[in-house]
């Protein structure tokens, strides 16, 4: 079933409350997906690149991170099973390769985006990572009921396959293996067997080829088969698209202060000013997109 939420703030005054609002929305969607949960937060931008990594044995794996990757112009922040390393952009690829060589899993990278995801109930996952206290401009979250692949940290959403890009998905793709092979032929590789990661990689590869996010989302309607409601984030944008059959639920709300997305209206109940918001169901095969 899965639950998805997203929140894109239009007013800077609300930014300190992003994590709190998004966590409430995510926890409300627990009964749509209690297997695992994840959240991507677009927070303060750094000069270099923030790389978020995960480890099942953080006590051992993260003990020497500061010594190895810290120093002037770099930071290492450990949060439970995740660590966020800030490094100069020119060194990012090298650092990412060294982190992966140490057996750490890369959740995502970006000037603004940080991704936290784990197996477990959404409330516990959000508490472990202190999501409520995080500020930012926009964010997306997911509560997973696993259908296409195993219940593991790597199978949790959001999936990130490009800097500051991430995607959450409700549904299941039926041509993901074929698309995975096509993408691999272009040199775009995925880390998991998960269908959603293929959706994310498809969008990243289209953007890398020069498409706008809007065009890449239009492309999903042509090239991806199956059921999907996708919610995507980029450094400055927030987009939504549903397949032409549109049997996966989706509802959106917009006020002068924010745009919100959720699988169900329940997730909006505590948002400020929701009583006066424009609330609507996104049309099938239609791309919705906001930029700041």
């Amino acid at each position: 079933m899965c639950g998805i939420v997203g929140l894109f703030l239009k007013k800077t005054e609300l930014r300190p409350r992003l994590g709190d609002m998004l966590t409430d929305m995510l926890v409300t969607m627990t009964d749509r997906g209690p297997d695992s949960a994840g959240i991507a937060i677009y927070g303060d931008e750094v000069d270099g690149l923030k790389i978020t990594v995960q480890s099942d044995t953080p006590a051992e794996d993260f003990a020497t991170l500061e010594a190895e990757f810290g120093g002037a112009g770099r930071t290492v922040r450990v949060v439970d099973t995740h660590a966020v390393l800030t490094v100069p952009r020119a060194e990012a690829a090298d650092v990412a390769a060294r982190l992966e060589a140490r057996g750490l899993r890369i959740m995502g990278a970006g000037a603004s985006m940080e991704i936290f995801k784990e197996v477990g109930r959404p409330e516990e996952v959000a508490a472990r990572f202190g999501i409520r206290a995080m500020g930012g401009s926009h964010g997306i979250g997911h509560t997973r009921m696993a259908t296409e692949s195993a219940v593991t940290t790597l199978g949790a959403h959001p999936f990130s396959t490009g800097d500051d890009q991430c995607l959450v998905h409700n549904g299941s793709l039926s041509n993901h293996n074929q698309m995975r092979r096509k993408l691999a032929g272009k040199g775009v590789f995925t880390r998991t067997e998960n269908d959603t990661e293929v959706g994310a990689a498809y969008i990243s590869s289209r953007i890398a080829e020069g498409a706008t996010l809007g065009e890449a989302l239009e492309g999903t309607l042509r090239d991806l088969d199956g059921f999907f409601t996708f919610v995507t984030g980029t450094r400055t944008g927030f987009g939504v698209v549903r397949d032409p059959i549109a049997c996966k639920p989706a509802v959106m709300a917009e006020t002068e202060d924010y745009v919100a997305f959720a699988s169900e209206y329940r997730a909006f109940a505590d948002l400020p000013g929701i009583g006066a918001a424009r609330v609507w169901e996104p049309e099938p095969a239609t791309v919705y997109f906001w930029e700041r």
Partner: protein
Amino acid sequence: MLTIDMATTALREVNATLQAQAREGGQGRFVLDNPRGAHAVAVGLDAPIEVIVKGSTGYYCAGMNKHATVRVEGSVGPGVAENMMSGEVEVAGDASQYAGATGRGGLLNIRGNASSRCGISMKGIDIVVHGNIGHMSAFMAQKGNLVVLGDAGDALGDSLYEARLFVRGAVRSLGADCEEKEMRAEHLSFLKEILARAGADAAPEEFRRYGSARKLYHFNVDNADAY
């Protein structure tokens, strides 16, 4: 009139209170505060009571309704008034997917838009939508009337049986075995009556009627292209 605050009363208790009215032969008026998008609000009612829901609800609001009048002062999620037998359900805002699905009687009056699959497999219910409806509406609809003041999405009335569809606006496409039909005096008088009942601001002459071409009732290999 009894007001129940859903912020402090469990959903099961709310529905049990409403359902108890039938056993007690009761009538009455109930107001439900703070529905906050909850699922299965005011389901299984079986008495001529009136329920006002002060806000938006989630899935299956007023499902299986019999005799009761349920008015939602907000929007509703998927499956509102599913399998309604009689009575009336009114939605001030929009309705999500499969509104009035399999409904057998009564009136579902949606003042906003309805999404895809509105009236899917309807079996006698009357549905009035003041706004637009989405794709695959009235799919396999068997009996009853779907009246739409706005536009209809793709594949209206696919595999339709004897339900009657009236649309005032544009129809993006008709589904298999659905065709436009002549508007006769009986249809105009029916529309006049139901539009008045639904408080809809439209004239019967503005609508076009769609119904089954009856080619798919029995399998015939000559019609294979139509499936």
